[in-house]
């Protein structure tokens, strides 16, 4: 579905990604793991169009997208929930969700998507008039995922959804991610919490210093010696 082909990405003159290539197959969860500074967020920002690669290309369903504007990429069905959530703190929960349905194709399905979101996250329904900036970390993450769903994604990109959250909430978030996946939405998951990511993922890639160093099925990589030593603290 998504084909990232040898992209080289720079911040100014500083190169961050080197000939990066990987694929996201339709359906299921694909994980991209690595430690801080490996280039995970940069990769996602390049996919969603916020950053342009200096060379290489990205294809979505055989259509080239790396040169498109971010809003066009959202229209195509790729929705990126960034690290740090990036909500609109001065808007209410409901307004944030409605903003999610900004694109034309999302607006058509606004009602049903909203119902589904409230079903997945009942607490958002409770707090729908509350300002997003006043929510707890976990609630904000739920809102961020909720509004992404409002954009009717085909490919949902999640950047560190567990960051800064208590373990109980992290569990709930990952449960929801699995449910979303079951509904047929393809998920690209970037996580520092490597264990969770690998257990959930059908296919996983390990990113280090801007390069893919390992790839394989999620459950395989959990048993991989290198992964165990470097990322699972074994």
């Amino acid at each position: 579905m998504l084909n990232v082909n040898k992209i080289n990405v720079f911040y100014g003159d500083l190169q961050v990604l080197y000939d990066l290539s990987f694929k996201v197959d339709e359906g299921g969860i694909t994980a991209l793991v690595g430690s801080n500074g490996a280039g995970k967020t940069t990769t996602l920002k390049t996919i969603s169009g916020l950053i342009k690669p200096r060379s290489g290309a990205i294809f979505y369903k055989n259509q080239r997208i790396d040169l498109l504007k971010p809003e066009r990429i959202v229209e195509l069905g790729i929705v990126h929930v960034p690290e740090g959530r990036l909500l609109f703190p001065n808007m209410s929960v409901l307004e944030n969700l409605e903003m999610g349905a900004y694109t034309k194709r999302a607006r058509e399905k606004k009602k049903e998507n909203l119902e589904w979101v409230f079903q997945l996250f009942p607490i958002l329904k409770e707090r729908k008039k509350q300002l997003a900036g006043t929510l707890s970390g976990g609630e904000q993450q739920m809102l961020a995922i909720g509004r992404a769903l409002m954009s009717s994604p085909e490919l949902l990109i999640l950047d560190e959804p567990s960051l800064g959250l208590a373990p109980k909430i992290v569990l709930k978030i990952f449960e929801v991610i699995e449910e979303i996946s079951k509904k047929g939405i393809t998920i690209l998951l970037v996580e520092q919490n490597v264990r969770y990511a690998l257990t959930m993922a059908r296919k996983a890639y390990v990113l280090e210093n801007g390069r893919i160093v390992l790839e394989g099925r999620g459950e395989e990589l959990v048993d991989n010696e290198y992964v165990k030593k470097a990322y699972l603290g074994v």
Partner: protein
Amino acid sequence: MVSTIMLIQAIINGILLGGVYALMSIGLCLSFAVARVANSAHAAFAILSSFITYWLYTLLNLDPLLGTLVSAGILFPCGIMIQKTMLHRFIGKGPLMPFTFTFFLALALENLMVILWGNKYRAIVVPYTAASITIGEISISALRLVAFILSIVIAAILALVVKYTYFGKAMRAVAQNREAAQLYGVSLERIYALTYGLTLMLAGVGGGLFSIIYPFYPSLQAAWIGLLYAVVIFGGLESPLGSFVAAMIMGVLTSVIGVITQAMWGNVVMWIVVIIILLIKPSGLFGR
């Protein structure tokens, strides 16, 4: 010296004046809040609108209130075009570049008007120009009252649009977080273009109404833009409500000081106030 009646008259005139200030400055505030574009050409476009309204009245006998609407309607696509062709280069790196560019744009526009129509006073005189309501010894100019009411109406409409329409939400989104807005599918280019169009349109409404109440000439824009910036900064550059309140306060202040001392001192005091505000609390009254 100054009697109580004069003072009350001054305060009332000040409130009405504040309405005019508010009308003129709300567009400036909007542009800054959404796109961080400091539109130094705001007053120049307002005066352009005054001229358009004037000529529509003089040549076609179109009632200036309607003329204002037409003029504003003309300025809307102008704004979009200017944004798309020129201003877009300067967005995203802070307000100084748009400030400087629009400053020279204002200079060019002002002198274009001087070339076309000369730098002499123009005024629109309609049958209802001198109409006023008299309560006791206080007289309230009907036109200024209309302008005041209109400023409130327009501010209210703008507030509703910003709160309830998708366009308004997109503007707020871009104002709060550009990157997040893009990820939600908002086209920054479109929003910037529409915002500047809206800004000039609001300047147009302000200018059109201004032309009915006061005489005007092209070089007036140089003094007015300083004033408008004063209002907007005082109120908080990103808060339309702040601009409104600041406009009222400035209006009353200018009027009262103008009555007590000589008219010009009111302006001096105002500019000193702005500098003080810039030093103490640059975010203004309602700014974050």
